């Protein structure tokens, strides 16, 4: 039963533990003298790994500052003499009427509308499953849990056909509505709610005369914050990343998210003649588009580092 019990100390820095047992930091400090040699080896291993994972990102940073001739002609991992980042960004504003910013805006809209909606539904459902005992609860939850294993891409083509019957293909809704589905979010919220919200507290609120909604909003919701941030992050990232669904349900260039848009530019640049080759806009556009998520992960570190493991920790 303990396998899927969530951590309740999600917001703690990983180096400390809520139970007050000696933290890992103390432990490794104690070992320092004896393990000097291995520590150098371990650090070298980590540095090599980090270089592997960072090199393509470094390449993107460098490439965003080059114009097309610089991309072809200068060393891939170092800056060209000519610093063209601002020209490139200006180019993003003028190429095809600045459609790039439209794409970026669409990505934000889809990710936040889809992510916030999916999170709200998951919180409500997770709370309902964890704290109310209604007939059919076990069966319904089993079905939801099983659906985590249904590959969502298998649903794209039927979803496309359904949405086109209702005439909402090629509208923002065609991306946002299917993105509201997050069975895994419901599962995470349920597991977390079960442990983090004591029944006694809800009972006490009810005895004090609070209605069910008020009990939920004022007693339960504040306790669920770490899990809410995690589910929100996962579903925003999921929608922001989504490629297959928008590729299938959107054809109007004005509605594309930035992922599909940049892929379209790449396909055109590979196939097309000089005028359609916008390599410098692809690299600088890719660079600008990854900044928001990288920055949010950096600032939300203390949430996701513990939170990503809800539901999988022993």
């Amino acid at each position: 039963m303990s396998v899927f019990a969530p951590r309740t100390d999600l917001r703690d820095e990983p180096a400390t533990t809520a139970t007050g047992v000696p933290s890992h930091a103390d432990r490794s400090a104690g070992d320092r003298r004896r393990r000097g040699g291995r520590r150098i080896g371990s650090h070298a291993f980590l540095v090599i790994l980090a270089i592997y994972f960072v090199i393509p990102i470094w390449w993107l940073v460098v490439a965003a500052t080059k114009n097309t001739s610089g991309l072809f002609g200068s060393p891939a991992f170092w800056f060209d003499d000519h610093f063209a980042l601002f020209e490139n960004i200006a180019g993003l504003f003028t190429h095809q009427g600045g459609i790039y910013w439209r794409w970026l805006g669409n990505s934000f809209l889809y990710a936040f509308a889809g992510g916030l909606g999916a999170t709200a539904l998951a919180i409500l459902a997770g709370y309902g499953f964890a704290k109310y005992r209604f007939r059919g609860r076990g069966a319904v939850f089993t079905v939801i849990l099983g659906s985590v294993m249904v590959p969502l891409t298998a649903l794209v083509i039927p979803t496309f056909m359904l949405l086109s019957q209702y005439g909402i293909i090629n509208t923002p809704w065609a991306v946002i509505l299917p993105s509201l589905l997050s069975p895994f979010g419901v599962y995470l919220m349920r597991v977390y709610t079960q442990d983090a919200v004591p029944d006694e507290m809800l009972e006490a609120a009810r005895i004090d005369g609070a209605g069910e909604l008020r009990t939920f909003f004022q007693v339960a919701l504040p306790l669920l914050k770490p899990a809410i941030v995690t589910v929100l992050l996962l579903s925003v990232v999921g929608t922001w990343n989504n490629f297959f669904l928008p590729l299938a349900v959107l054809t109007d260039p004005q509605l594309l998210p930035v992922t599909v848009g940049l892929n379209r530019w790449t396909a055109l640049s590979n196939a097309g003649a000089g005028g359609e080759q916008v390599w410098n806009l692809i690299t600088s556009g890719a660079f600008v588009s990854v900044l928001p998520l990288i920055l949010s992960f950096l600032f939300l570190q203390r949430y996701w580092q513990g939170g990503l493991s809800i539901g999988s920790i022993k």
Partner: protein
Amino acid sequence: MTMQTTLPAQPAPAAPARGNRPSGGSSLERRRQRWGWLFVTPFLVVFALFLVFPLFYAFGMSLFTSTLATGTRFTGAENYVKAFTDPLFLEGLLRVAAYAIVMIPVQLIVATAAALVLDTLATRLAKASRLLIFAPYAIPVVIGALMWSFLYSPRFGPSATLFDVVGLPSPDFLAADTVFGSLVNVVTWQWSGYYMVVIYAALRSIDPAIYEAARIDGANGWQTALRIKVPLISSSMVMAITFALIGTLQFFTEPVVLRNIAQGAIDAAYTPNMYAYSLAFSYSQFNYASAIAFSLGILVFAGSYVFLFLTRKQSGLK
């Protein structure tokens, strides 16, 4: 997964209500029941509209065939017979299975090794490495694949320069026999950091007293890592493998993006998902595409279910 977490959900028949629930107030009990349904209904509506309904719809579509000559007619299992004798679909299935067999262990080994090393260090360098290894997760899959396709490209890529230095001809990363490895590399780069964070968090939740006991018994660092830590985090690893498995069998985005510059090595039916997409959107064969999508869905579901069943001991999902 299923049985484990639903056990507490089913009220024990012998004790239908807990002691503190008012047993006489059946109207109160009914109101609670109604509130439970109210909380879960919004999700269930979305679940029904965008998961259950499309699944049934796809299944329904797959039972028909429509041609210009004959119109749409019921053909039963014909599309499924066609699918499972269609070399393009079968090759795609074998290919994603091969990707799963290679890619998942590579990712998990990288992630676990990094997490185990990080777990023994508390330095700033280790903390920074953890962030950097995770960083690719924050980059959309499409953008990651685009970046790698630039790096693989003989025109922009650094490999020509790098191999010139050692005096060797640069390998072609996008040839028919190398593209497999190139794609494995893209996926490993994109996802290992995420699995590392999950496994690392699991390692952090182990009680350090266990290591103390192991050290007193004379275990060295390797033994502690492999004999104590790895078995204790096996449930997290099973979760990570399950997600990697579901993701790999649906392989779509990376090969589609790399296909921009490697049309010779990656065809339109490279993976089952790509095949279904091109059947639907290039050839308008929606019925057959539904059969392919539905078959893939069932196979992925069955595959992950079997995997979870086989590993129920490791994951604790008895």
